[in-house]
């Protein structure tokens, strides 16, 4: 199925190159495998609700959530991957981690122009990847990225300690860090609290002072001390920005029966860590037994007792009762679950080029938004209302 789509794409490449030759911005390599931007200069409308997702060959799509359609498609420089996204507080600039995990770009969604570019490597012999771990300050003036550098020496590699690089988002197309701080390893998703603290999901969820680099455990994960619970397993590469300012990460774990340490009789549980970015309040809560895997989960903005999860099915849980209320079958896997601001619709992204739209109450499938281009891979879908 993918192959067919790609062969169609290739036919269009020549045309796309011609168009981009005229409109391409300076200072960067062209997206030579790309399609043309569509509705490039169509500005976003104030008060309208949109969603951004990235996909192959290398583009950023803005979806209009009023009529669930593609609003515009921007071509991105260099190469695609992973297409992780964060929306700036101005609700106009999208930041995308791309070029094989090695560069972050800021894109003005009104005109598809790249206004910010930071290469994660800080010296020529360094190869540096950011494993999804980037976000913006609460005011949007700074961008934070955890970088995994490796020095490529003449006849050997030397892995370097991870670092947090802080950028001024007004630094333009050759942005350099304004400061770097030692960071714990294994950090993936990050979000910033209203108080300025940076929440970093790694072995535990840390909270870092982005000026001093001091950090402490905000929510223990690997090192939690929950009687009868085994160490949870956590992997979240989708830092979804929610309408309720909740930073939510799923975990799986097992809870032994009283007086037992037998995994065969233990309860296998799904749960979530949550940090409310407004208040700084944290939660660690089980929401149901493990019956299947979810890559992402989010709570309803209408009812904080409802948890949704997605991978091979779209599922809905009553958190207090720890019960699966409903599940919808899917046509294929979806990785990234988002919800619109009033909590009425769920949007499923990641894999293929379909964004599936579901009724948040009934889990009835309402629509499918088909993106131009190919697979979304592990892009982050972000919903926002334009200022």
């Amino acid at each position, binding site marked *: *199925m*993918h*192959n067919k789509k790609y062969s169609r794409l290739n036919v269009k490449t020549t045309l796309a190159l011609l168009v981009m030759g005229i409109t391409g911005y300076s200072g960067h390599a062209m997206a030579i495998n790309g399609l043309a931007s569509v509705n490039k200069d169509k500005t976003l409308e104030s008060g309208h609700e949109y969603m951004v997702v990235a996909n192959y060959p290398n583009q950023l799509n803005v979806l209009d959530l009023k009529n669930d359609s593609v609003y515009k498609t921007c071509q991105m420089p260099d190469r695609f*991957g*992973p297409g992780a996204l964060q929306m700036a507080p101005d609700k106009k600039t999208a930041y995308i981690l791309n070029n094989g*995990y090695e560069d972050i770009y800021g894109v003005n969604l009104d005109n598809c122009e790249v206004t910010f570019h930071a290469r994660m490597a800080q010296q020529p012999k360094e*190869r540096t*990847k950011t*494993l999804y771990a980037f976000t913006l300050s609460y005011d949007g003036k700074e961008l934070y990225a955890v970088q*995994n550098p*490796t020095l*490529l020496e*003449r*006849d*050997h*590699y*030397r*892995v370097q300690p991870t670092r947090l690089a802080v950028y001024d988002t007004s630094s333009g197309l050759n942005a350099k860090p304004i400061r770097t701080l030692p960071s714990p*390893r*294994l950090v*993936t998703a990050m979000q910033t609290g209203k108080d300025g603290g940076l929440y970093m999901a790694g*072995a535990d969820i840390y909270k870092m002072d982005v000026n001093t680099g001091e950090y402490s455990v905000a929510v223990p994960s*690997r090192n939690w001390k929950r009687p009868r619970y085994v*160490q949870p*397993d*956590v*992997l979240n590469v989708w830092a979804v920005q929610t309408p309720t300012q909740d930073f939510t990460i799923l975990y799986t774990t097992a809870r032994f029966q009283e007086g037992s340490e037998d995994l065969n009789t233990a309860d296998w549980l799904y749960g979530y860590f949550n940090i409310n970015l407004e208040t700084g309040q944290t939660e660690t809560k089980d929401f149901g037994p493990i019956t299947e895997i979810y890559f992402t989960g989010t709570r309803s903005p209408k009812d904080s007792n409802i948890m949704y999860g997605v991978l*091979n099915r779209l599922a809905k849980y009553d958190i207090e009762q720890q019960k699966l209320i409903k599940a919808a*079958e*899917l*046509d*294929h*896997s979806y990785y990234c679950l988002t919800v619109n601001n009033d909590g009425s619709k769920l949007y499923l992204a990641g894999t293929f080029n379909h964004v599936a739209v579901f009724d948040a109450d009934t889990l009835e499938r309402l629509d499918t938004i088909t993106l131009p281009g190919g697979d979304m891979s592990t892009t982050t879908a972000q919903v926002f209302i334009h200022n």
Partner: protein
Amino acid sequence: MKFPKLSRLNLLLRKTPLAAGIAACGMTWAGVANSASDALTEKAESIIRSNCLACHSEQQAEPAQFSRISHQRKTPEGWLMTIARMQIMHGLQISNEDRRTLVKYLSDKQGLAPEETAGSRYAMERRLNTMESFDSAEFAEMCARCHSGARVALQRRPAGEWEHLVHFHLGQWPSLEYQALSRDREWFELALNNMVPALAKDYPLKSQSWQQWQQTDKPELGGSWSFAGQMPGKGDVHGQMQITSAGNDEYQVRITGQYADGSPLKGKGSAIVYTGYEWRANLTFEGVGQEKIKMRQVFAASKEGDQLTGRMFAAVHDEMGMDFSAVRQQSQPDLIAVQPAYIKAGTRQTITLVGNNLGTDVSLGEGVSVEKVVLRDANKLVLQVRAAKDSEPGARQVTVGQAGGASLTVYDRISSVKVVPEYSVARVGGNGGSTPKYNAHFQAEAWASGADGKPGTADDLRIGYVPAKWHVEPFDAQAKADNDVHFTGRMNASTGMFTTASAGPNPERRMSTNNAGNLKVVASVKDGGQKLTGDGQLIVTVQRWNNPPLP
């Protein structure tokens, strides 16, 4: 994360197999105690100096030493993978001929002694369904989680080189520490602080066995050989292998053999011997009609040079292959196979004894008598034999003159059937993708109850592989619901070969999933009036995208 270059690596490796082509160096090697001949050394060092010193440094040493390169020991496959990685990832430009020269030189000079490959040869022999087991859970989780443990166990390095390897791993695959069984621990710290010392201790650069092997005279392998093998789906095979020296550890090979069903096995090709004992051959066999089948041999020569053992397998479908053993004719008397290696009490059958320097006195053990000699030469004996009705079930050592080493089992009835392998993995493929299907081959192994009369107990007697009728069933309720039997492929009812379905998402399946599934493999065997069945499990899964010579 996607690393598309790896698939290029696979292609490159597939296109230039170890034993492809001949590079003439003009020096004989057999009997020379040095690890690499002078001419080979001179040529290889010149290639290194002109191709590798942009990154590697020549060190102050006599004989010549190069940074990194001179401080590791590997198998021929290991060296090939290293050089291919330099091509793919680091822009090395090198001709196939020069690369072959380097693999030969490095394998000879910095190889593994026979003792050092023992227990890990399955990786070189492409037995990808081997279930590995290691004493160290940490080794299994830290190293053998992503690739075979054998790939590690077939290398020798000092601590500094193992440390470089850890840095290379995390630097090249930065996502590895985020994966399950990494993210639950401080992977990088553990790798440096625990694994490096453990690997340097278990797999050190310097070893007594390597030191001794370097001093050992290496035998020439040219001559006439008798071989015996056993091919799933076809059965026993035996014949002659004619090996002619072409100099410089290179040989021309001709094989003429016959399967138990009478069909011929005929092919020819070339071979190279690395490290004085690592036999690698590429052969082309005549198939049905105009069809040619390319096969490879990965054998180890015995120290005396009178035995070759290992596996011969199809070059593209390396899941199809046979255990193979050969003995040099006119060497010490040896019996390598009795085909078939079992007989039912009270029956008469024809058996073939394969070996070398076979004498005249045949002993098949108590209760088994020779009724007629159908054919006899020094390397093969075809006999019509009879097992007395009251002969005691059990294995008997067979001797022919002074030749021994194989056995014949008498049984009264089959009491249980095992599917071999009991658990295996096959993979979808083809369909325009870069990866061929990886099919599955099963055999039905018959067993007799031992003295206790109960099957499945410790005293059971292995009879051998017997013909069976084959089919597959859903392994469980999920497999049934997903109709895995229909989608995953087809079982050949008579050969036990399962051919997998095509690769790629299948719109006819639930969620357009691949043609993966979970099957029960059932063998039905008739013995006398009774019908017995045995079963195994077959997982059909997606392609192995990263498929270098050492898994």
